[in-house]
């Protein structure tokens, strides 16, 4: 059995308490809304994309510690990336949280995001960690429909 601290690691607790890139983004070029109907988590993700690169990113909303920390960590990770790089990171993140618990995750590939690998032990919480990423995908493709985890 894993300890609760594998889920609620210091980094996650810190990003939950002091989320980075939190707030509105007045000069956003695109944005998307995400909603997890299971727990009512809602977030709005805004991007300023210039020349195929994410120049600025910000999120607003309410959610549990995992969803908030995941959104905060994600915004830090994709800031400055090209659209393709961000889309690739989405795939890597998705791969990580869906890797069976008895198999190792590729920590080098996801860097700091590896702290969220602990959600694999908590199937009900994987969606909390994924919400921001699904919302990012929607924002990148400028989908009008809110991103959902269900």
């Amino acid at each position, binding site marked *: *059995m894993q300890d*609760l601290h594998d*889920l*609620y690691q210091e980094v996650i607790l810190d990003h*939950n308490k002091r989320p980075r890139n939190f707030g509105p983004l007045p000069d956003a070029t695109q944005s998307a809304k995400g909603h997890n109907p299971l*727990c009512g988590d809602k977030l709005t993700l805004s991007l300023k994309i210039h020349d195929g690169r994410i120049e600025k990113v910000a999120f607003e909303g309410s959610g549990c510690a995992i969803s908030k920390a995941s959104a905060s960590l994600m915004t830090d990770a994709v800031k400055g990336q090209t659209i393709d790089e961000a889309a690739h990171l989405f795939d890597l993140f998705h791969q990580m949280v869906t890797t069976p618990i008895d198999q190792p995750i590729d920590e080098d590939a996801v860097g700091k995001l590896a702290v969220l690998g602990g959600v694999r032990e908590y199937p009900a*919480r994987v969606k*909390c960690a994924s919400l921001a990423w699904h919302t990012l995908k929607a924002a990148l493709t400028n989908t009008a429909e809110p991103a959902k985890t269900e």
Partner: protein
Amino acid sequence: MTPTASDTPAVPATLDVAAIRALFPALHQQVYGKPLVYLDNAATTQKPQVVIDALRHYYERDNANVHRGVHALSEKATAAFEGARKTVQRFLNARSEREIIFTRNATESINLVARAWGDSQLKADDEVLITALEHHSNIVPWQQACARTGAVLKVAPIDDAGDVVMDEFARLVSPRTKMVAVSHLSNALGTINPVEQMVALARSVGAAVLIDGSQAVYHMAVDVQALDPDFYVFTGHKVYGPTGIGVLYGREAVLNAMPPFMGGGDMISSVTFEKSEWNELPYKFEAGTPNIADAIVLAVAIEFVRSVGFEAIGTHEAALLDYGTRRLQEVPGLTLVGTAKRKASVLSFVMGDMHPHDIGTIVDREGVAIRTGHHCAQPVMDRFGIPATARASLAMYNTTDDIDALVHALGRVRQLLG
């Protein structure tokens, strides 16, 4: 002389909770190395051994299809199935077993009424009145019925304690009101609605009444003749019975006037390619092979509850709710959501900016099972301006130790997230 029950001196109803707990095998296990503390009873209750044994017995000894067989097993299964209907009739104090229809759950019971009664009775500009406390199962079927018929859905508001504002409720009852559909006991807040008063108001304008008793039937005795709604619904798995079986009580005259819900076998008296004629009550509303096993086992669960007695259950649970209310209010930063004057079972709460979902995960690792989320009552959450609550809900087998374990686990939440 042999003593009889009537010779036994009256003793105050008490409940031997240790003896009760011994009857529920699922309570005696560990999760994450901690003794299980089960406080998610409003979602579903655990099952006593008699219920588990009855299910096994049915499939081992009596399994057959009902109503049409001439062989021994079919006769046994039919007798048990119809006996179960009589048990439910007595449980609700209905006048006749023809008024008891087996469904899958309360949701299906409400959908049956919204379809069969709603589509035949509601017209454009008629009104359906519900309360702001309702579970989605008593909102969505009426929204759909209104969309089909042009009727209008009206919602009686609740106050900050979680009580329906009865002045507003009374104001919303008008000659246009054709259906009043209310929960007996709120699953999200624990509020016990003044259903007697609501029925009287509905009657004053000739409106029909449906009461969703899913949360009530395992905490208090229900007498449909005294309450006198047109419909009363509940689900089996909350009254210590199996999943997949629910009940619709309907007044015989009202059910007779309704068209069938689903068509198929068992609900007909004759079929030709030109025309089919409907079977009598209750079979008119039970198309297809019913959930025979779970209906029979539901009756066993009901007999179990009756043997414990609602007086004893009510006394025990009320004391526990008082204790839980007091103990939770001592937790720093905790706010109870739902403090109605008349309440049962439910302790819904929030803790500052700690999200209920995190609370649920952390207390789970301490062995404490509670529910977190919107409890299928999103409008209730919106009313209080919160996305979700954490909810502990009590049943006959819970103890003050369970409450203490929850309070201890909430200390762990504060330690981790505070």
